[in-house]
């Protein structure tokens, strides 16, 4: 079974992010790292391929400046190869544009399954995977908390607010996985060494031959600071604290 994992390479969340004052978008110069939320997808893909007993994992990424540092992490974990689309014309691309680019790149490998994170850590739109599925003509299942492949069907426990739904659909399909779905492995030293020699195909928009091309039309008109978090409520126990806490949790619909 061949699995594609969409991998976003983002500015290191450990160092404070910066917005470009003119474009009002995140500055993406300098070394990028693999988005932690994608580590789960990579691990899931490796496990699925392992269980299937054959096939390989291909990473697909769109990133500026031919950045491969984040892809190397996934290759070190065990992915076989990577495709990177890097093109100056894609600067400031919105989710749909990115979906078009990734879908075109994914088509080249003819996968049985495409895995993505539910959303990225730096963008949080959470729309790209389903847009990509639509463009590929694949069914999609979001918020997977467990994934199993059975022949030509993918079976997913899909996280919901109340619990989870058991959903299945035919392959090829797009599945988005939640954080914590599996425990991502640490790349071993041998894996890191081997990753240096694994193929990373570098493509531009022209190489993809996208019907109608892509144009970056999104403009960020304004950025406002998020509302400061409100102070929490302190419940002092006067014999009824448990009831008040239960009420509060019910309001939040968490119980």
């Amino acid at each position: 079974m061949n699995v594609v994992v969409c991998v976003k390479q983002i500015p290191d969340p450990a160092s404070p992010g910066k917005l470009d004052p003119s474009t009002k978008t995140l500055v993406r110069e300098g070394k990028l790292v693999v988005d932690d939320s994608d580590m789960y997808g990579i691990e899931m893909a490796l496990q699925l391929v392992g269980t299937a007993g054959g096939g390989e994992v291909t990473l697909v990424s769109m990133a500026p400046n031919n950045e491969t540092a984040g892809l190397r992490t996934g290759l070190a974990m065990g992915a076989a190869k990577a495709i990177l689309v890097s093109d100056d014309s894609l600067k400031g691309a919105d989710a749909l544009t990115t979906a078009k680019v990734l879908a075109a790149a994914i088509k080249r490998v003819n996968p049985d399954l495409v895995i993505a994170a539910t959303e990225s850590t730096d963008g949080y739109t959470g729309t790209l995977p389903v847009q990509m599925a639509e463009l590929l003509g694949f069914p999609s299942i979001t918020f997977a908390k467990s994934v199993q492949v059975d022949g030509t069907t993918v079976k997913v426990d899909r996280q919901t607010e109340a619990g989870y739904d058991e959903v299945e659909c035919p392959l090829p399909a797009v599945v988005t996985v939640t954080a914590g779905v599996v425990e991502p492995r640490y790349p071993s030293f041998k894996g890191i060494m081997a990753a240096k020699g694994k193929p990373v195909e570098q493509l531009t928009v022209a190489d993809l031959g996208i019907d109608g091309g892509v144009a970056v039309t999104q403009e960020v008109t304004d950025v406002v600071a998020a509302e400061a978090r409100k102070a929490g409520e302190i419940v002092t126990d006067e014999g009824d604290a448990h009831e008040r806490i239960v009420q509060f949790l019910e309001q939040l619909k968490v119980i």
Partner: protein
Amino acid sequence: MIPATDPELADDLVAAVRKYVQQEVVPAASALEHADAYPDELVDGLAALGLFGATIPLEYGGLGLDTVTYARIVEEVAAGWMSLTGVFNTHLIGATLLKLHGTEDQRRRWLPQMASGERRGCLSLSEPDAGSDTRALRCRATPDGDEYVIDGTKAWVTNGERAGIVALAAKTPEGITCFMVEKEPGHTSGGITVSRKIDKLGYKGVETVEMTYDAHRVPVTAVLGGVEALGRGLPQILGALELGRVNIAARACGVARAAFEASMRYAQQRQTFGVPIARHQAIQFKLADMATKLEASRLLTRSAAQRIDAGERADVEAGMAKLFASETAFEVATEAMRVHGGYGYTTELPVERYYRDAPLMLIGEGTNEIQRLVIARGLLDRYES
């Protein structure tokens, strides 16, 4: 000559270790240390990363890393928990002995198993009455046909219980000989018994034991380097200890770094007299001295490692690095405690652990008094007029 590790690869490896240490070691270290519990999971994690094969050549299944990269990795691990670096230190000293002096058969037989961590090694030179004075060794290996019979008591054997192979110094008619003794991990194996577990001030979690050999038999093929190498054990072991001294120096850098970084953070948070204590000159001077000595330690360590990589004799340089870095770790850990005030003296913060761990590096792998002798003798040799 050890082939240089590609610098970009080295950075990636160091970054991978740092991540592992931050996510797995730092959150677990203090509790394990206070319980003096063997860190099975962390050791398995380090084995999965490949650390047990770090300096073992590629052709024997290791990673073939150069000593400079190895030292950087040791610093990362020690900055999380110093004890963990002890788990692979004497293991890799044993592997280095095989690499440098083993017969091809011995290398093929043991190095691949050691590289994967499946067979773990330890080094057994010291005895209850022979530490610095290695000529006073009493453990005997008596030839008997195509076997040797080993009798004696060895002290301070780090990893002794869990090891599956011991690099053992014992007296034969030719002098001190190094044997590679296979054993089953555990309390007893043949005539070998773990007679005592030594309780320590720090460096907890990893075992340091006393081991007794009672008519334990080994084949002649256990002589490191074969029968031609009988009586050459001391120079063999002292040579491999150059790597051990770089390990100790790098550990000292790790402990000093952890103590320094904790102090940096605390000095900017803790307020007295209306300002963070980092604004008081008395504290600033401490921070400046800590950082300067840490940087110097790291550079000495790197320089010693570079010499080993270049295939040059490095006793003086490894001695200097071990001496200076360990004294620095001891000093920086003490200063870190002062910076933290009363909180530094509690078991809630790791500063007290750094303070208890640091003195090991003053003593282990040759005391600092002995390092000074080694350095001076080496220099007098080089400057002989």
